[in-house]
């Protein structure tokens, strides 16, 4: 049986945040990160697409716009596999709380939005470790666009311009991110993601997250004082 379909048995705890750009998830996970650190808990934060080995290649390929959805999908999986084995797994073995800013659900949402077969992608990531808790930040593509593009145009890939949905990057962004949000919505049930309304205040969201995380850590024998 593939590892992703069952509970992990590492000592540490894996917590993820998901959602489209501009949903506020990075702010929230950074707040959670410093909170846990201040409480003296061993915690690491890891980001999507940050392994040095691959990110150069992915960037090069993006610049040339020469990759198909499937090759892209594989390259992201390579990056993830590298990070899983070198960062996430050792930290979980050592009993750390691992916070992941985006996890495999990002790939499931984006790749399928690029017309890659959902079953194929899920199977490919079968080697992934199943998270203990995942928060999904629900935001409408329009609100997301307002947040990220207040001072710039959306990027080629974040607007899904490769999908040729529209020649206008702003329109394309909304259309493409809508497809991604659709996938996230399907996944909240499929994988039991905890949905958070991204339009709440930063403080409200953080309180909700801290409460859920504290309970989870308590169950796993990690107690937060105060």
């Amino acid at each position, binding site marked *: 049986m593939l590892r992703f379909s069952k509970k992990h048995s590492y000592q540490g705890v894996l917590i993820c945040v998901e959602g489209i750009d501009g949903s506020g998830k990075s702010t929230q996970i950074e707040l959670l990160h410093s909170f846990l650190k201040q409480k003296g808990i061993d915690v690491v934060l890891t980001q999507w697409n940050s392994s040095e080995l691959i990110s150069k290649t992915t960037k*090069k390929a993006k610049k040339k716009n020469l990759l198909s959805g*499937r*090759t892209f999908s*594989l390259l992201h999986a*390579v990056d993830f596999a*590298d990070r899983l084995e070198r960062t996430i797994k050792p930290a979980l073995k050592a009993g750390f709380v691992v916070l992941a800013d985006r996890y495999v659900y990002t790939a499931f949402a984006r790749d399928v939005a690029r017309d890659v077969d959902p079953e194929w992608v899920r199977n490919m990531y079968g080697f992934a470790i199943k998270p203990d808790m995942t928060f999904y930040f629900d935001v409408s593509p329009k609100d997301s666009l307002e947040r990220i593009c207040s001072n710039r145009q959306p990027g080629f890939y974040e607007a899904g311009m490769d999908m040729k949905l529209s020649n206008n990057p702003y329109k394309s962004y909304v259309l493409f991110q809508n497809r991604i949000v659709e996938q996230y919505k399907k996944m909240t049930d499929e994988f039991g993601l905890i949905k958070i309304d991204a339009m709440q205040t930063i403080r409200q969201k953080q309180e909700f997250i801290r409460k859920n995380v504290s309970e989870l850590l308590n169950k796993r024998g990690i107690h937060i004082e105060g």
Partner: protein
Amino acid sequence: MEIKKNQNGEGLLIVIEGTDGSGKSTQVNLLDEYIKYKGYGVAVSEWKTSRLISGVINDAKERNLLNTTTFSLLYAADYTDRLENEIIPALKAGFVVLMDRYIYTAFVRDSVRGHDINWVKSLYSFAPKPDLVFYLNVPPDILIKRLIAKNGVLDYFESGRDIGLSVDTYNSFEIYQKRCLEEYGKLKKEYGFIELDGTKPKEEIHNIIKAEVDKLL
């Protein structure tokens, strides 16, 4: 999962499989010349040659950086890139495409490295099915002699040293290649490979390949 039949047009997809030192490349070259001589367009595509990705694989190998999952995925990315940019366009244009190794190489190497074969197969489930697959079978003791004669050394990965079978390269090579041959043996039946005795003279092997290819042309 079933691999899809080649539906990309009139071209032919012909694969030559076998381990390092089995004489694959020699046979690919001979066949390439033969098909050209017959007046057909030919394209050759070798394993791990995508311009974008093969550099990353070599770099990672040199630094011995990657775990087996990352390697599997990188090879799959390399294959996909070649499939979309070389193989499918050539098939569509009616070329005979000769593959020096194909997805079966990944099936063999990855399952010897402990991956679930079904995971690997599903990774390549979109691959077009070849029209012919030739498999050059050479026993490990002869492979060793050939490779030492050719390169002077046994390759780290071709000896399976990355998975810690033995600290002795010679022993490791024997164990690794035997396991690979076992895996090829399984695939042979499953995918209907045409098995060729790789210890025979190259002309003799080429004649058998020619006869099979002629039937298709």
